[in-house]
């Protein structure tokens, strides 16, 4: 687990991060979300030990990042938003270099390169120079360099920016594969749609502050699983529909929309059927009933509204 404790960072003119307390779970893909200038990159740089904060600590498992940065880097790999490759080195040379950078035993290098090549699906490009690769392939090669030593954590800053849809899809699959292999990923982005595919946790940051999770009364991540939005449209009065829903389950959160009413509801299909039957029995002329997964975007805005 990566624990960030009471972390603040100041630049000359302003405070970029303010008292951040957050834990990044193991074996999860955590999306670090926020608008441009929210402090995502500063938080990431502090987390990986490339920047020393004004105050606070970061632990990777039990390792204090600022006291033992080199030990921490054995457990963690980082790919910045603007990463670089050596244009005149081949894919294989890049991976050989990466293996050497992590002081890998010579007898293990070939096996590690093969494993990484399979993961990043660049087997047919092994002897191609980096300059000849597409942007998506370069991105995968850079990730390959980062993961060749099998770090426990992989931190990526805006990994999909500038990629075409096909490359994004291939990147999403790679992230899920890495998660399944036991790696924990922290991915920062301000494009929520791109995170929908793979993120399991959400951490929202804005103006250098993390948003508070009321339930746990601490700055925490917001879970996005097991919740769906039900969009219900009816021909009759929407206010009557809302009243009926509230009568059915007063605790439900709902929101009036142009097309009808959106209700945050359980993803249990039987319960959804029971709700629909109840509303029809109440005489509402329902012509549209759709279970929509609660989108990360909804969660993001919800967490901002809850602040």
């Amino acid at each position: 687990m990566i624990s960030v404790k009471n972390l603040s960072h100041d630049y000359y003119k302003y405070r970029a991060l303010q008292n951040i307390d957050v834990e990044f779970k193991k074996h999860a893909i955590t999306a670090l979300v926020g608008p441009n200038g929210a402090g995502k990159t500063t938080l990431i740089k502090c987390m990986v030990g490339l920047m020393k904060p004004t105050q606070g600590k970061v632990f990777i498992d039990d390792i204090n990042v600022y006291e033992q940065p080199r030990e921490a880097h054995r457990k963690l790999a980082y790919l910045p938003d603007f990463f670089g490759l050596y244009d005149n080195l081949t894919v294989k040379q890049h991976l050989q270099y990466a293996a050497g950078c992590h002081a890998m035993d010579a007898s293990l290098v070939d096996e590690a390169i093969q494993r990484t090549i399979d993961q990043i699906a660049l087997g047919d490009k092994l002897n191609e120079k980096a300059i000849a690769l597409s942007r998506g392939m370069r991105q995968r090669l850079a990730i390959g360099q980062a993961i060749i030593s099998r770090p426990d954590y992989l931190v990526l800053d805006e990994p999909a920016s500038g990629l075409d849809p096909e490359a994004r899809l291939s990147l999403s699959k790679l992230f899920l594969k890495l998660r399944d292999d036991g790696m924990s990923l922290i991915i920062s982005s301000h494009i929520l749609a791109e995170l929908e595919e793979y993120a399991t946790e959400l951490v929202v940051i804005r103006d250098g502050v993390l948003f508070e999770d009321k339930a746990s009364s601490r700055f925490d991540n917001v879970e996005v699983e097991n919740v769906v939005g039900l969009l219900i449209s009816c021909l009759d009065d929407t206010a009557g529909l809302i009243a009926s829903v509230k009568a059915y389950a007063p605790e439900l959160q709902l929101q009036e929309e142009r097309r009808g009413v959106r209700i945050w509801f359980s993803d249990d299909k039987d319960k959804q059927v029971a709700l629909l039957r109840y509303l029809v029995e109440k005489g509402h002329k329902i012509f549209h009933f759709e279970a929509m997964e609660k989108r990360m975007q909804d969660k993001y805005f919800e967490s901002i509204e809850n602040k």
Partner: protein
Amino acid sequence: MNLTELKKNVWLYFSKASFIGIVVVYFLALFLTTSISDESTSGNIYAISIGFFIVITSIWGSFSLSNALLSELRNRTWVYQKMSAISALDMSFGKLFGPTAMHWLVGAIFLSIATLASFSSRDHSLLSLFHLFLGTLFLHASSLVLSLLVVRQKQDSPDTTNLSGRPFLLIAFFLILKAIASSFKTDLNDFTWYGLAINSDFFETLSLLVFAIWAILGVYRNMREELQYQNLPNYWVAFNVFVVFYFSGLVFKEVHDGVYTVFNGLFAFAFAMHVLLTVLTLFLEPINFMDYLQFFKNWGKKSWEKIYASMPLWVFSLAFSFVLCLVLSLQMLVDKSLNLGEEESYSFLYPLVAFMFLLKSLLVNLYLHLKQTKKANFVWFLYLALWYGLLPATIGGLFSAYGLFLFYPANVILSGSASVFYVLFMLWLIRKELKNGEASELIKSA
């Protein structure tokens, strides 16, 4: 030893075509010169080999080395290396000899042939070749230190396109130092160091060896900093002590009507070198006011170990300059023969006035950084050139030499008063900027 970095740099920068091309041109030059010239063949071979070594290995090598490191920053590959498991020693070795592998290899050919040529010529000694080798090593290591400092300064703005000329400055600086060094010869072939007359070739070679070792230690120390090792400023303190020791032993020569007058300045040269070191470190080290804030916080807590660890390097050199200026003043007070200027009774204060001018110049730099001036260091460089060069030259030339006391320590009382005023004025400006400027509340409260 992990040779990954060396190997990568050889992959990137060792060009077989260039290697063969250089060797062919070299042998062609040897052939043409020896077949055309009437002078001694071995002398020609020696001269051409040395010339090729200086151009290809010393100068081009310095450029390649500096460019290789700066392109890591430019191409955004530096972060990956900072987080790698390669040790500072292995990284230093790889960065020092990887991009210059080809230059050293052809250099070895040039030096080998120059060595063979030196056997049949009494004019050339093996010591000169060793001297050249050490000079190149010193130049390469210094170039790498300079580039590492640039990398630290420009970590967040990878625009290093305008920095490729820096090794030129270094080479110019090196040549100036060589010229200055000749001023220390007390007769044609000797240096006097702490009263010992030492053969100049031997002394220069030994000095180069020691300075090359310091430069390599500088590479290692800066590499440690970049690779995030816990890094105490011990090397810098030790280097400052060494500079006091080395330069205090030198004796300066003055020539009047063909007669040498020996001027034993003792701490004067060491003081001058520390002034230079203070200015250079302030110019080259990144100025981060948040780090300074941390330093003051540690100061408030009287946490001496942390104060020592977080102290900017220029502060150490400034402290050494201050101590040396006090010692020098005392020395001048006791030994009247050392006094400069006309007002003998006050001239022992001259080093203190010089120190105040130094302090004023440093405060100007800090103020420029506080104001977040674009290219603050470059503006400071211009200011130094104007203040200490162009303005006094113009005023002295056009009007009167009396006004020069305003620009540098020309007169103990007048310059001393002016320097105190400058320092107080700069402190007032800095205080005002901190109070009303754009710095965050955190800095203002500190």
